[in-house]
């Protein structure tokens, strides 16, 4: 059962670009070897931390979006925990949220199709009321 996750982690600010790429590629190989799929990798760059983490004021944020099982996430988190340059990580499951958003979108579109005229008219009425009042 594959689920979609967002895995965000922070590495030390003094980590070089190559080392980051190396870390990401090892994580990617873990993902693909256990039947998962890496959807996107985003380096969000260096940012000031909101509080002190392992005596660091800054950190480089990296965001991975991936698909996989719970066991895969367990393995990834274990790897992040033991890898020295990673100072913090957070995994968030997002597939249920995406499902909910799609549902909302569908409902909204259905509503638009069902009544294209009344909604804007009502809005215009409210606006004029605010102006005249």
């Amino acid at each position, binding site marked *: 059962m594959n689920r979609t996750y967002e895995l965000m982690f*922070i590495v030390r600010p003094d980590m070089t670009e190559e080392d980051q790429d190396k870390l990401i590629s090892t994580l990617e190989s873990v993902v693909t070897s256990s039947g998962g799929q890496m959807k996107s990798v985003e380096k969000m760059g260096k940012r000031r931390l909101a509080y002190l983490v392992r005596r660091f004021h800054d950190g480089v944020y990296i965001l991975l979006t991936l698909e996989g099982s719970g066991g895969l996430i367990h393995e990834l988190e274990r790897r992040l925990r033991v890898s020295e340059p990673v100072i913090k990580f957070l995994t968030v499951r997002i597939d249920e949220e995406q499902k909910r958003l799609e549902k909302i979108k569908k409902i909204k579109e259905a509503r638009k199709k069902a009544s294209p005229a009344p909604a804007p008219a009502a809005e215009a009425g409210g606006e004029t009321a605010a102006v005249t*009042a």
Partner: protein
Amino acid sequence: MADETRPVTSASEHTSGGPSGDRDRSGGGDRRPPRPGGPGGGREGGPGGRKYFRRKKVCKFCVEKIDFIDYKDYRTLGQFVAESGKIVPRRLTGVCTPHQRRLSLAIKQARNIALLPFAGRAL
């Protein structure tokens, strides 16, 4: 004709507004229809004759039609966090219950990954 819609909206606002007066933080923004003497709007404040207006509080996420509150969007989340780092209660911000639930979850996730402070201002 158009005026007939007004009492309904102001009545609903009357029930939702807390006793917090002008402590509106980031709730309404630029939405402020002038309403002289409306049932929920301007009010005579006791014998002193001081008038104070209560701005109508609206849920930012409902107005801007934000369905998904993202923990990565720390700028938006920061509007609903007090100077001390606390989550501002919805009676002050005007956020609706379903959105406040998601908002608090997002703020807690953002705190976990050091995007927002647990206490105090960001370093």
